């Protein structure tokens, strides 16, 4: 956690947070599936002030060859932040943080994909953060799951993700940027609703076991809601596709910025 001292009152006298949310309230989440033409599958996520695009290519031939697994597909995620996605311009190209996030998202997705159906192939997942405002790894994992489904990759279930955390000694859901900068703990979590499995889990800050217990359960509840929104996006995608004669024209457009 940034842990930067701050004058911000992160929880007000009514128990509301700096952006008016209740402790267990998620930021608004919108998902659109199938927004790109070139990729085999894609999804666009707006989650609070985060804007994240995910695309999937594959299963396809795995390069370099020595990475091929003769028994399974390799799920390779590449998480990248656009240089203009943050206030202080980020140097283009991967840094250590993005390497770590790519790794844990790859692992989380691998768990749900039926990789044994596609030996020797690679399923490549690209996550591009266009605008960042805390919580991009959860937004990215959430978008990537939908993009995989949009690409027709068979999965046990969609992975849904959401973070819980602690601000002003209160366990809260889905930290925003100010809360992330000045908060006390963050717990990003990826979840498989159908099986109740946790496939991504990190934590940093300072939490008692009780607070951790509360936060994890709060994040899991949120993941169930995220999962609903994921399913809605896919339903809209498929109904749009089947409603049109020419499916190619039926791809939903990327939602426009609100006023």
């Amino acid at each position, binding site marked *: 956690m940034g842990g930067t001292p701050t004058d911000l009152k992160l929880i007000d006298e009514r128990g509301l947070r700096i952006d008016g949310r209740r402790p267990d309230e998620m930021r608004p989440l919108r998902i659109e599936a199938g927004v*790109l*033409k*070139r*990729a085999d599958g894609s999804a666009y996520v707006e989650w609070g*002030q985060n*804007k994240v*695009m995910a*695309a999937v*290519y594959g299963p*396809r031939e795995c390069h370099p060859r020595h990475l091929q697994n003769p028994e399974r597909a390799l799920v390779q995620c*590449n998480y*990248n932040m*656009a*240089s*203009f*996605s*943050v*206030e*202080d*311009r980020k140097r*283009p*190209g991967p840094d250590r943080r993005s390497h770590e996030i790519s790794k844990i998202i790859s692992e989380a997705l691998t768990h749900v994909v039926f990789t044994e159906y596609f030996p020797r192939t690679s399923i*490549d997942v*690209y996550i*591009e953060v*266009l*605008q*960042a*405002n805390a919580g991009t790894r959860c937004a990215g994992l959430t978008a990537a799951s939908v993009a995989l489904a949009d690409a027709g990759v068979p999965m046990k279930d969609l992975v849904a993700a959401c973070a819980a955390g602690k601000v002003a000694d209160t366990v809260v859901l889905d930290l925003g940027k100010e809360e992330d900068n000045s908060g006390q703990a963050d717990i990003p979590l990826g979840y498989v609703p159908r099986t109740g499995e946790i496939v991504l889990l990190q934590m940093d800050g300072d939490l008692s076991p009780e607070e951790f217990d509360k936060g994890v359960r709060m994040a899991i509840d949120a993941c169930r809601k995220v999962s609903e929104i994921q399913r809605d996006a896919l339903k809209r995608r498929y109904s749009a596709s089947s409603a049109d004669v020419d499916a190619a024209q039926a791809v939903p457009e*990327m939602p*426009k*910025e609100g006023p």
Partner: protein
Amino acid sequence: MGKDVVADLKRDYISKLLAKGARADGRRFDEMRPLKIETGFVRSAEGSARVELGNTQVVVGVKLVTGEPFPDTPNSGVLTTNAELIPMASDSFEGGPPDQESIEVARVIDRGIREGHAVDMSKLVIEPGKEVWIMFVDVHVLDYDGNLFDAANIGANAALKTCIVPAKRAGKGEDYQLPVQHQPISITAVKIDDKILIDPTHDEERVAEARLTVATLETGNLCAMQKGLNGAFKLDEVFKVVELSRKIGSEVRSRF
């Protein structure tokens, strides 16, 4: 090898259509694809635009940070243009450091903005010779269906037009509008079977013999040009592309 067969088939298909004066998507030879421009798409950028040119989609973000001027231009801000042809956008793009293709795109976009004096760089000086605004124009390609040059050029122009200099954040007085003075609009043509086509799709680019990008100004003057691909142009073909670029560039400019 499979790819090559497909390429050959596409080539034949495109050639046959062209012989009849038609393109695969029904456009005239001198017609651009539908163009959508959405500015202010990225709030973390000082200026931004999302552009769809047919199925090609790019996001351009402009960031401004303070820094030192180049020693030989103490009274001028600094422009840096970068293009990320990320593998999300096409299976023909690879990850890793910029390759020749993305470098060429970035340099041609940069040349248009710079040589067309899109921004009054003298108004980006904080203290002459000491501190100026460094303007980063970053092109992020999300979906690639040909003609990055024009999609990115239009995105850069749109992003600059809406860009705010974040002086307050840097403790340099009040924010102000980036001093944009010109719209150098580039239009790209390719040559296939001795025919000149404007705004090529990815399929058209793959079978094209030669490519020519021409950036023009409000005055009708030329400010940047780049020929590409392994083929050649005759002189009259060059002049034809120049004229088309002036005409269509002027139509695009009217959108700003």
